[in-house]
């Protein structure tokens, strides 16, 4: 009983669909053994996230679905609960590659919308076919086509930069070359992202060389301030309320599961030369306490002044590579502290096309 022959047995496989129940109970078990039970029913939050319908219930402001019909005043979405009709506020803003009128949205578009009031029917923000690619450029084909590595957990994406966006993106990302970081927002197409907006400014260092965080004496400060960003769902449910945490426990989490493709000695022209394993680059420029999938974080959008308890649902190690600041409202502290799901980002009052908000995080709710 006392010998550990199979430690990886406990590894948090973030893509394991059988695991949500195990992760969901963690906050309950932790509260039982440490005796710290918040007034919020945290276990409910996570349990609700474990299936698509439950995730819908945990969202107060956000709805995701596919557009079935749209008029200037009504949006019909196919959601996890079936067909739903939403009145559109007169002042509502819509985005599809840029600001458009709601009527300009198209049938079949994947949309994420925000209600004006929690649980209310009226919509005031609509994003259609919005996507984001964040990672290391590993190949460039011509002036406008990039292959981007988003880290071992997320894989690789193709980014195309159209002539209309080239100037805007190159102002913030002057080095569109292999080995440098990129973070762009745009329109999702089958197999690629059409980059339209730079989500941050390009760090001056190469992807594998983020600056080290200052040493911390005593305990890690709580709360921690920094930047919160969002990522596309990937294999997660599109309406998942959660976040990818940059500092999962390396002993039981994705650091073990992640493996970079092997580099063949002498094969200098392959893209692997430029791929960066974010787990091997240190803690990044903000030191965060180690947590696990299922840990609860109370996250505050300092710009919208909204707070939610959000569970850690996946590994966000790629966020460690970015030592940037968010300037949505004032200038945030350096470093990304949370990589939210799209639904969580919208739920907290973030604007997806802006890409980030200044955030404050408390561990454990």
């Amino acid at each position: 009983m006392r010998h550990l022959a199979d430690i990886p047995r406990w590894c948090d496989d973030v893509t394991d669909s059988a695991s949500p129940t195990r992760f969901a109970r963690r906050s309950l078990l932790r509260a039982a053994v440490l005796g710290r039970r918040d007034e919020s029913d945290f276990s409910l939050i996570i349990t609700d996230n474990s299936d698509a319908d439950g995730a819908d219930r945990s969202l107060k402001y956000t709805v995701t679905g596919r557009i079935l019909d749209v008029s200037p005043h009504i949006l019909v979405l196919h959601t996890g609960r079936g067909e739903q009709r939403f009145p559109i506020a007169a002042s509502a803003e819509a985005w599809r590659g840029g600001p458009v009128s709601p009527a300009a949205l198209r049938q079949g578009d994947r949309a994420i919308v925000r209600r004006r009031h929690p649980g209310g029917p009226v919509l005031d923000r609509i994003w259609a076919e919005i996507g984001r690619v964040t990672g290391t450029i590993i190949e460039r084909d011509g002036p406008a086509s990039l292959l981007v590595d988003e880290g071992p957990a997320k894989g690789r994406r193709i980014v195309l930069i159209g002539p209309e966006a080239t100037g805007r993106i190159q102002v913030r990302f002057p080095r569109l070359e292999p080995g440098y970081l990129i973070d762009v927002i745009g329109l999702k197409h089958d197999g690629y992202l059409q980059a339209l907006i730079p989500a941050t400014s390009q760090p001056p260092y190469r992807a594998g060389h983020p600056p080290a965080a200052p040493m911390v004496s005593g305990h890690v400060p709580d709360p921690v301030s920094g930047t919160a960003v969002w990522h596309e769902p990937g294999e997660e449910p599109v309406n998942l309320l959660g976040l990818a945490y940059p500092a999962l426990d390396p002993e039981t989490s994705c650091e073990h599961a992640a493996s970079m493709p092997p580099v063949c000695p002498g094969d200098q022209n392959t893209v692997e030369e430029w791929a960066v394993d974010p787990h091997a680059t240190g803690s990044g420029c903000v030191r965060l306490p180690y947590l696990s999938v299922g840990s609860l974080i109370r996250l505050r959008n300092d710009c919208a002044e909204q707070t939610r308890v959000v569970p850690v649902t996946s590994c966000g190690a790629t966020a460690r590579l970015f030592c940037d600041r968010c300037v949505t409202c004032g200038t945030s502290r350096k470093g990304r502290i949370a990589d939210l799901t799209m639904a969580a980002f919208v739920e907290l009052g973030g604007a997806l096309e802006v890409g980030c908000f200044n955030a404050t995080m408390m561990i454990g709710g």
Partner: protein
Amino acid sequence: MLTAIREVQIPLLAAMLLGACLAKAWRALRPHAHPARSDPAGLFLAHLRRPIMILVFAVELGLGLGLFGTAVKFGRSWPALPATVVRTGTALFFLVAVRVLNEMRQRRPDSGCGCFGELSGTPIGLRTIARPGLLCASAVATLGLPPLRMPSSPTEAELWLAVLAFELALIAFLSPELGEIMVRLGYSEPCELRRMPVGRTMSALHASSPWRRYAGQVSAGMPSDVWREGCWRFVVYPGYARGRPVDIVFAVYLQSRRPAVRAAVLDADTDEVLGPTGTRESAVL
């Protein structure tokens, strides 16, 4: 006096070269060491970096040992030619280092020199470049020097020590690593950031009194879940208590010696914290 100054250079150069070797080896051997965040190999293509780092390590090791090996007489013979070769090689090595560091400073201003492994992460400045310049001059000063001998008088020994102390102080002034060493000596990483193998947590748990109290209720050989939050690692075992399935949860504080261990028992079906055995038990071992 001039001879004393020249004689001090040989052990000093050898110590610097071997110290750099040790620091590089320490970084390479550490299982979770950060990759070359800062070293001259970063100037080269990725596939060349490792061979170049090995080459630098081998050259430093060879020169360091060579300086020691050719410094004194063995019996009646003294290898004059090898001594000259090693000392000339040392001078050339540091001359090349000056050139490389200057190049790095211009091309990668955010990088450290990597001269002493992880300790050399401070961006390269003029002081960092001046250090190999000084060592190059030291190596040139040793050319043509006869075999080293013990000081013939206390006065000569004092002169030796004075020269050594002055030069060490000068090198310390030119070394950004010294500040890093001082910080690390007085630094203890917070428990939230400290890596702790699961095996050590389990060993601490199995040696604790909460474990002994609840071990009889545990029904499986392996835990059903293990995870970490900040300074605590949680271990859950399935078990039976009062005839019903329970989850026995242990929380182990992540410190190396005498960690606190707490336990709780929950009904596996209802998540109810069970009566007297389910109340939180705490023990600092």
